[in-house]
């Protein structure tokens, strides 16, 4: 369980993380979503006690990170693939981590096996590809077999096989009752992995909801129709009380999942349909809409010039 309470981080007059309050519970994969520069990594660094919050508080199972007596068996984190000294072998990197927390040496070989780096265990980390570095970071996170796992952009640099592997890994870790907190700027990635969703934009909390609720609320489904007897179809649909929107070209769109009903109506009136396809607006669009709203909110006239300028700049970027 990770609990954030009013967590805030300012650099000068720039607010990186703005009054975040949410908690991350066990047994679920919680996605931490936001555009680049939204404050995800800063938040994660504050959770780990690396950065000091300007205000607010964050606790791991009720304790501050620097009060943990067994940090690696409590929480394992993949921050970025670069958290490794390139001149050290993968084995020695993990060994010094294990020793610092009194974790048995045998765990090193186990986690190397888990992430598939056994063959290169004695090779220097600077020769590793981005994906291998990511796997080494994940091995470090798993080393203490912790109750809580935190991954910052874990799929970066992984090949499709690696991405599939990390998805499966995160789900199985959560299924064992662990808390899994994973950041991403890709909604599509989160939709496949996360059970719960925390969305931030410009350091502010935008959404804290279950994935199912988010999909239901944000993914607009509609039916796309093309029909040579266009006017006749419009009449039929109008009589049935179905609202039709003109889409580009000769296509029509009907909100909701009414494909069966429309098909039956067309058959009953002997209408030819060239296309009748149920569609869904992508979650990516929903996500962009959500974060764009935050930008608009910031760009409204306010008392301070700082956030205004920032919001405008962000929108332009």
């Amino acid at each position, binding site marked *: 369980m990770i609990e954030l309470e009013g967590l805030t981080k300012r650099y000068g007059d720039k607010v990186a993380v703005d009054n975040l309050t949410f908690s991350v519970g066990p047994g679920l994969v919680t996605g931490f979503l936001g555009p680049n520069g939204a404050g995800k990594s800063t938040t994660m660094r504050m959770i780990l006690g690396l950065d000091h919050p300007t205000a607010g508080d964050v606790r791991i199972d009720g304790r501050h990170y620097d009060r943990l007596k067994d940090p690696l068996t409590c929480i394992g984190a993949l921050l970025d693939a670069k958290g*490794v000294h390139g001149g050290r072998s993968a084995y020695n990197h993990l060994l010094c981590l294990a020793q610092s*927390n009194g974790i048995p040496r045998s765990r090193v070989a186990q986690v190397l096996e888990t992430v598939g780096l056994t063959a290169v265990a004695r090779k220097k980390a600077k020769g590793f590809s981005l994906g291998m570095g990511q796997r080494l970071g994940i091995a470090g996170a798993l080393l203490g077999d912790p109750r809580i796992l935190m991954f910052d952009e874990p799929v970066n640099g992984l090949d499709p096989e690696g991405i599939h592997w990390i998805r499966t890994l995160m789900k199985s870790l959560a299924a064992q009752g662990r808390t899994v907190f994973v950041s991403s700027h890709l909604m599509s990635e989160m939709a496949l992995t996360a059970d719960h969703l925390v969305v931030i934009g410009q350091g502010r909390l935008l959404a804290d909801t279950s994935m199912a*609720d988010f999909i239901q609320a944000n993914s607009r489904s509609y039916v796309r129709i093309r029909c040579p007897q266009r006017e006749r179809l419009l009449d039929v649909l109008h009589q049935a009380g179905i609202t039709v929107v003109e889409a580009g070209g000769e296509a029509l769109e009907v909100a909701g999942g009414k494909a069966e009903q429309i098909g039956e109506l067309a058959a009953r009136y002997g209408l030819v349909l060239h296309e009748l396809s149920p569609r869904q607006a992508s979650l990516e669009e929903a996500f962009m809409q959500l974060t764009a709203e935050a930008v608009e909110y910031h760009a409204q006239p306010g008392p301070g010039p700082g956030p205004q300028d920032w919001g405008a700049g962000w929108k332009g970027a």
Partner: protein
Amino acid sequence: MSTHQPPMPQAPAAAPHWQAAPGGPYPGYTSPIPIVRTHLGHALASEWTKIKSVRSTMWTLGVFTVLVVGIGLMAGALVESHSDSESLSGENPLSFGFFGLLLGSICIITLGVLTTASEYGTGMIRTTMTACPSRARVLAAKSIVFFTVAFVVTLLTSGFVAMVQVSMLENTGARTPSGSDWFKATVGISLYIALLGLLSLLIGSVIRHSAGAITIMIGVLLAPLVLALFMATESLSNVRDWLFEYSIPNQLSVFYANSLSESGPSGWDPLWIILGLTAAVYAGAYALLHSRDV
């Protein structure tokens, strides 16, 4: 928390597995790995693995050994070949170890800086601080491990050179060194060099940049002496003498009782000076480490 409804069908199925585990107020996964309360010993073991598992340690200490032993033996041989039985009458034969150690100290400075600053360059420091959230413990463990390594290596090499030189120069009229001479030229000088390295380690932690910190430390090592060399004017003589006397090379030579001047530090003074300086910088480095973001 009320919003945390498991939407996935497999989550409730897995629930009994972890709800059965004793988790106190924070339920969840319980690892079979025994929980260990970490202490300084763990951090020391970790830092020992770190320092011996990078090639830069082997390189700097290897070059250090070559410089100290090589230059020490060459100096001894050179002096011996140009001396008759009276040349060094009454002189301390241990003093010819100075040259190798002066150059070798640059290697110790480099290793000291790299011990801390390289972690910032590679991002390893975040991993280190995540594994050991007590920053005081991290700094202490790094300092103890590095100081011990630097002291032992310097003691072995300077002790070896001293023994060889004394036997080489037996027939040049040099006096037989006393126990105190021996102690200062081996243990004393090794403590001084190791503290100089520790000072570099702390500067590396403050500056967080290897090249910058090494440059600063080499400046500290050589600049006062070089500046003093060019202060010919009489009106600067006080400054010049002070720079000479308290320059690190001159303080090193005090351990062999062949200082550049009669005044200035003598006996064990250099050790107390660098001990005080290192303690002050240690306090500053810790304060910065504690307050800054990693």
